[in-house]
Structure formats: C-alpha cells, structure tokens
C-alpha cells in the first residue's frame, strides 16, 4: 500500500497564559476577537483548510492552557507536531523570558526526530496595546533571540487588530509542511496477513 499523502498539519501554540494564544487562533480561524479574558481549560484544537504552495492541507491548531493548573492530563498531544508556535506579549517582559522554557519543554516532551531543525515560529502579540507605549520587549531583542535559536521566523502580531495574523499562520503552515516526514507506516510483523488480521475478541463489557 502506498503511503498516504499527508494532508494534516499539526500545530501547537504555546506561551504563558494571557498572551493571546486563544485570541490568535480565533482570529485566524474564525475571524473573531473578544476582549474579555477567559482562561483556557485543557487543550483542544481547531482546524482550518489552507493552501500552501498549491497544496491543500488541513491545519490542526492546538490551543493550550498556558497554566499548569489547567493542564492536568499532561502534554501527550505535543507528539507528532509539525510546527510549534511560541507566543509572548510584547508588553510583558516575563512572557518573553519564558519562551526559552516553553521551547525546551516542548522539545523534551514532543521528542521530535531532529530537534535542532524542528520548526518553531515566534509571535510577539498585542502590538496594538495602548499604541505600543507600554512595550517592554523591543523587536530587536526578540529577533536576536530568534536568531540565536537557529533563525526562528518572527512576527509581530495583534489578534485584536488582525495585524500579521494571516501572514504568521501562512508561514507556520509552510514550515510545518517543510518538516513533513513520511507518515510512520505500520507494517504487520507476519507475512500471513489473514492470520493477523482477525480482530481479537475481548471479553467483558464496557
């Protein structure tokens, strides 16, 4: 059987709570923004069909809680990610400093084949906030960090004003697709397929 052409890209959005992960995803997928703050509990995804270089793919975008107390089940969903988006709030220094931890944590938990070349994208969000007069992280500093980490693409975004959101996700999709590894193919371990193929019966009830 030929390997199925991959059409699903898995993207994980990480960052401190409140930086705008949920808002960015909602702006990109639903073209909506809410200024109310509602903490995200647990992790779940939205999907979006995108065209990347003449290919139509489905992006599965995972939004995460960003605070430990609402991440009780662990991070099994990191596995198989094609791209990881690191978000911080340009008006909150600490959220930028924590990017390092988010990145490390992701690499440890997701355990990608080639960690050095795994695609990340960094988003500095809320650039619209108070006209930028409370900015704590300058663009240069963020770009410097991205360069140090092997040239991570960097975007300055606003989920509220829909600034750079499409461009960022287009880049995310492109990098995710580049990362595309042949889907791990299962090959039955006996030649006698029929013998293996009979579903085992289980006893007991649910």
């Amino acid at each position, binding site marked *: 059987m030929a390997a199925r052409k991959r059409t699903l890209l898995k993207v994980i959005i990480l960052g401190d709570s409140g930086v705008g992960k949920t808002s960015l995803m909602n702006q990109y997928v639903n073209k909506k923004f809410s200024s109310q703050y*509602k903490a995200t509990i647990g992790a779940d995804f939205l999907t979006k069909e995108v065209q990347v270089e003449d290919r139509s793919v489905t992006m599965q975008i995972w939004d995460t*809680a960003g605070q430990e107390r*609402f*991440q009780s*089940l662990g991070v*099994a969903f990191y596995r198989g990610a094609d791209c990881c988006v690191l978000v911080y709030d340009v008006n909150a220094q600490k959220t930028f400093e924590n990017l390092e931890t988010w990145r490390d944590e992701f690499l440890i938990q997701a355990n990608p084949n080639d960690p050095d070349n795994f695609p990340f994208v960094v988003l500095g969000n809320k650039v619209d906030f108070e006209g930028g007069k409370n900015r704590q992280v300058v663009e240069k500093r963020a770009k410097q960090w991205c360069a140090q980490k092997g040239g991570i693409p960097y975007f300055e975004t606003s989920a509220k004003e829909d600034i750079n959101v499409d461009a960022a996700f287009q880049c995310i999709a492109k990098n995710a697709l580049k990362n595309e590894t042949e889907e791990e193919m299962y090959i*039955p371990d006996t030649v006698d397929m029929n013998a293996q193929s009979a*579903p085992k019966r289980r006893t007991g009830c649910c």
Partner: protein
Amino acid sequence: MVEAMGLEEQARLLQEAGNAVKRNAFFMKKAMDEDNLREALRYSATLLGELRTPTLTPQRYYELYMQAFNELTHLQAFFREERRKGRSYADLYELVQHAGNVLPRLYLLCTVGSCYIRSKEAPAKSVLKDLVEMCKGVQHPIRGLFLRSYLCQVSRGLLPDVGSEFEGDGGSISDAIEFLLINFAEMNKLWCRMQHHASGRDRDRREQERQQLADLVGRNLTYVSQLDGLDFALYQEGVLARVMDQIVSCKDAIAQQYLMQCVIQGFPDDFHLGTLDSLLGILPDLQSGVQVHVVVSSLLDRLARFAASDKAVVDTFNQVDAFGKLTRAAAKVTESENEVPSGDVVAMHAALLSFTGAVYPDRLDLVNKVLTSAYQALEKQAPIKDAKAEKLLVQLLSTPLDNYDVVTVLELANYPSVMSLLRPAKRKEMAVKICQTILRQRTLVSSMEKVEMLLDFISPLVRDTEGLEDDDEFFEEEQNLLARLVHQLVSQDTDEHFELLRAARDRFNAGGPKRLRHTLAPLAFAALRLVRTIKEGTADSKKADGACKTVLQWIHGVAAQLAEVPAAEIALQLYLQAAHAASEVACLELIAYEFFEQAFILYEEAIPDSKAEVTALQSIVGVLHRCRVFTAESRDTLVHKATGYSAKLLKKPDQCRAVCACSHLFWQELPAEEEGDDVAEGVQPPVRDADNVMVCLKRALKIANSAQQQLAVVLKGDHTTPVMLFVEILNHYLFYFEQGNPSITTSVLQSLLELVANEMANENCQKDEALLAFYNSTRNHIAIQKDKGDELAQKFSSLQL
C-alpha cells in the same frame, strides 16, 4: 479499575495497546483503500476496543486516546467519501450501531454523527441530543470521560451557536448550551463516581488520578464560555445557575474545588461582577474539604487585575458593592467551624488587601477594614507561629507601607493590632521595614504624637524586648537604621523640633548603653543643626541666644551621657562640634569654652590609647583653630593646653606633627573678603602671632632632630621617618612664607631647604619612594611659584633650589 503498577509496566502496556491500534489502523486503511466499508468498520471497532483497557493511568490512557483519535480522522474522511458515493449518513448512523461493543460503537457513532451534522442532513440539535444521551451507555469513569471529550471535540464548531451556519434549522444557542451542560453534568458524575470506587488503601492514588482527569470535565466550561452567543443574561440564567447546582449537588470536595476555579478563571470578569452573590453565596454550601479561601483569593486576584487593567470598571465595582461582598465572604470563611489554617487566612486577606489597593488606591479606610477583618480572624491564634503565616503577615503589613504614606498607615486604628499578632522577632522585622520605608520615602515625622507612635511601632529596635535575643548579627545594622531615622524627626517649628528630639532621647534611654552608643550621637548632631536653624531663623537675637543656649546645654548633657556609656571618643568629637557651633554659629563664648574644657577632660581621662590620642588631638587643634569667639585670655589657656598635650604625645614623630599643627593656632585665617567688616557680634579678630608660630616650628625641628638621633642609635641610621618630618616642616614653612608671616624670611627658608637637601642626599632616602615623591613635589611647588610672575614669585625668586 487501575491497579498499582510501575512506570515501566505502564509504558509496556501502552506500547502493546498502541501497537494494536496501529495494526488495526493499518487494516482499516487497507479496507478503505479497497472501498470495503464493512471491513473498515470492523477494524476501526477493534482499534477502538483497545480503549477498553482497564490498566492504564489517565495520562497513559490519554496518549492511547490521542493515537486512536488520529486514526479516526481518517475514518471521518472515509465517511465523507462514502457519502459522496451515495450512501446516506442516516444509513451510516444505523450501520455503525451494529458494532458489538458499546465503547467502539459510541466512538463510531460520534464520528458519523459529526459528519451527519456537518452535512446538514439532520438538525444539529437532534444529533447532538441523541449522542449526548447515548453516551450514557458507558459508565466506566475513565472510558466515559474520554468518550465524552471525544464527542465534544468532534462537535466543536458544529454547535448551533449564534451566527453559526448550524443555527436556525439546526437549533439555537440554548440547544448548544444544553448539549454542553448535559455533557458537563454527566462527566462530572463519572468523575465523582471514581472516588467511591476506591478502597481506603487506593485513596491517594485515586485522588491523584482524579486530579489528572479534571481538565476533561472543566473543558466543557471552556466550550461554553467560548460560545459567541453567550451574553450575560444567558450566562446568569442559563449557565451559572446550573453549573453551581452541579457543583453543590455532587458533594465532592475535589470537584468543587476544581470547578470553582474553572468558573472563576474560565468566564469573564464582568460576568463575575454581575453574579458575585451567586458565586460567593454557594461557598458555605461546599464540602468541608474545600479550601474556600483559595477560591476567594483567586476571585480577588482576578478582579484586582481587572480593575488595574481598566480604571473605568471601578464604577461597576461600586455599584455592586464588590468590596463589601468580598470582605464579608472572607470574614465568613474564617468564621466557619473548621479551623482555617492561619497561613490561609492571612493569604486571603493579603489578596483582599491587594484587591483594595488595585480598585481603591485612595481608600485608606478600606485598608483599615481589611486589617480589622484580618485581626478578628487571627486574634484567637495569636501569636502567629506558623512560618508561612508569619511571612505572609509581614507581607500584608508591608503592602500599605509601600503604597501609602507610612505615617498615615501607622495611624490606621488596626495596624498596630495586626502587628501585635506577630512574635517579637517578626515584630522587629516589621520595625526594620517601617524604618527602611520612612528613609526610602524620606517621610518627615513632624509631630509629637506621630513620633511617639512611630517609636511605639519600632520599639523592638529601641529597647530590649522580652523573648527576643538582640545581640545578633543585624544589631549594628538595625541601630544604624535608628540613627538615620533620627534625621526624619523634623518640625518646621524649632521648639517643637527640639521637643521631638527630647522625646526620642527619653525613649532611646531605655535601650541601654549598647544602643545608646549608636543612637545618642545622631540626636546631638540633629540638635546641632537645630542650633543653626534657630540662629538663622530668629530675628530677636536675645531670644535666639536663649534658645540656642537651651539646646546647647541639652547637647552637653547628651555628650556627657555618651561619655558615661562609655563612648569617650564619640563624646569628645561631639564636645568639639558643639564648641564649634557655640563659637561660630551661636557666638556664645562661655559655652564654647565649657565644651572645650569637657573635651580636654575626656582627652586626659578617657582616651584609651596613644593612637586615639593623636586623632583626638588633631581634632581639638583643628576645631580650636577655626573658633573665633574666644577672647585673648581664654584662647591662651586653651591653646596652651593643646600645645602642652602635643609635647606629651608618646612618639616623637607624633609630637613633631602635633606641634606643627599647633603653630596654626597662632595664625588664624583672615576673614573672607565678602564678610568684610560685617563680622558677627562677639567674633574676635584673627590671631596672627608670628613669633609664636616660629617658636612652634623651631620646636618641631628640634623634635625631628632628636628623633633622628634617637633612631640613629636604635636602627643605625637606615630609617627615613625623621627626614619625612623635615620635609613636612618645610611645607609648613612654605605655607607661612606664602602667607607673609614675617618670621619666615627668605634666609630662614633657604637654610631649611639646604638642611633638607643634605638629608635627602642620604642613600636610604633616595630609596624611599614615598619620601622622594613628597620631596620632589615640594620642590616642584617652589619652582612653580618662582615661575608665576606675580608678587609672590618675587619673594621666591631669591630662593635657591
């Protein structure tokens, strides 16, 4: 039920189950490629059967679930393909119900169901209702919880939310809410039921597993809060009431604790402000194991941040009396029958206080209310011994210090009572904080009442406290703080200012000698500054003199007390500074004289060693030189004494230097030009006694000479100190020469120059770098003076180097 087993065993089981999923997925996809629906369904059901595993912990089970989930996305695509080929979803919906086992059957049903809704061949609300009901077929907690989160995951985006394409025929927002809340309630029941399955031995492990599963239940609330159509009215009527109902009725502490957090964090602030009564109202109905203070604290934190982010909402806070409600809720928590640990009580009040600060930055009365409430809640547990509680209480007391004027905070009726809850060591820590804050904010403490109150607060620093060892490593540092604090006790009114210092002294007296050594001197120095203020600020000179006298007499007493401590060296310095002030500021000769006499007595009787003597004498001579109030007679007596001391110093070099210094006692500076004739009353004309200067300098030369001879005997002449003395004396000569002192003629100077040059030729001197440098710079000075081309240069011109 999950049995206790090691991590490795769990990993192995997961691997096995995962392999089975992969194997069946392989055949499922093969069947799809062959367009064999029956086989595809059969393999997918088998694949899903792996989720019936009874052995995995929630986190491992989640990994397996994720694997299965990924495979099911292929199945969704396949169903859509089938639909295109003409098979209806109604058909498929029927067909999958033939799967033998209930768990795989329901997963398949949810999968088809989501396609069914998306196709709009059936109204969303009916399919959703059907599915959420059908899922009741699985009552095993872990399996049921994951199945239901699968249902939500696949139906997300398919709900008949406002503005959604599924609204209308598919239903309305209330159907969406209904679906999510039923699912929420069912999941919560499954989750709580887990607890009852556990025997005593398994309890801890079971609790841990439950904690891990919490987010699956809480997630439903996130889905609800993210509905576009959820406005406040719907939330209040349709959501909160039912969620609260579920929370109370489940009677499970873990669930209640967690779900309260979810509601508080998951829904927006303005909703909370509108529903404070309901939120706070159910607190008393929660199980005894629930840490209500944590719930209240997180609500407070959240609302505080809301207020800080947008000042405009403060009105809303007022309209709903948020402060009153939250304070009462906090008080109620601490009144409850089960004793709340002191640390938690303090933590909650700390949250309440920072809430108050954020919402009402100008309302000190509210700060006081919070303190009152804290005091009442903790009174019975005083003194607070729990380490965490102590630390938090110190923080609680420090917060208002940082945000408001210190003295105003200290005046709050309940600040001292809360402070009294602390053990002495922590009270002292607070005292240090208070001092630091006053110094940092440069707050002036300017009335008697305030000073008394402040000194009460910081009494652990001021005097011994029962139960407190104070000879610790921080003692000096603390006393220095106190010393610096003295300078913040200031009043515009000089009489009052003086009263403040007197009051402080009375308090400091209780601190005993070890503290007085640090605290008395700053009082006296502050008073010295006050003398200047009085003199400069009082028009009536008689009145000024009277007031200055009083203060100086008081300083006299302080210095005498210091000498008794004993701290003779500081006392002596104080007498001298006081003498200087009496002379130069107040022009009170008798008092200045008295201060000198006291300084001399101390010099004679109490200076401990020869080194200290040298320093003390330097100060005496320095101050005396600058004092201009003395008439010739008293001046003679004082100068005579000082020169007498010089001759009695132990070491010859010290004697020599002291005598040189004394020469200046006969040569005071002329008043500065601008002062002109306008000298203050009582100031005597400067002493310019050339003969006596010469007497001193000659004596210095003699001493240097004899030092040289003495050392030549002892050290065989390789010592350069006497030559250094000669160079120093030469410099004094030069000074007087430049000053036009008639005793120092060119020829006198020339012969000294030659003498020194001779000495310098000595081999040892040439090796002494410091000496050489000093000598050369002296010669340089002469050379420069020669070159200047002014009047002085003329005098210098005949000097030969």
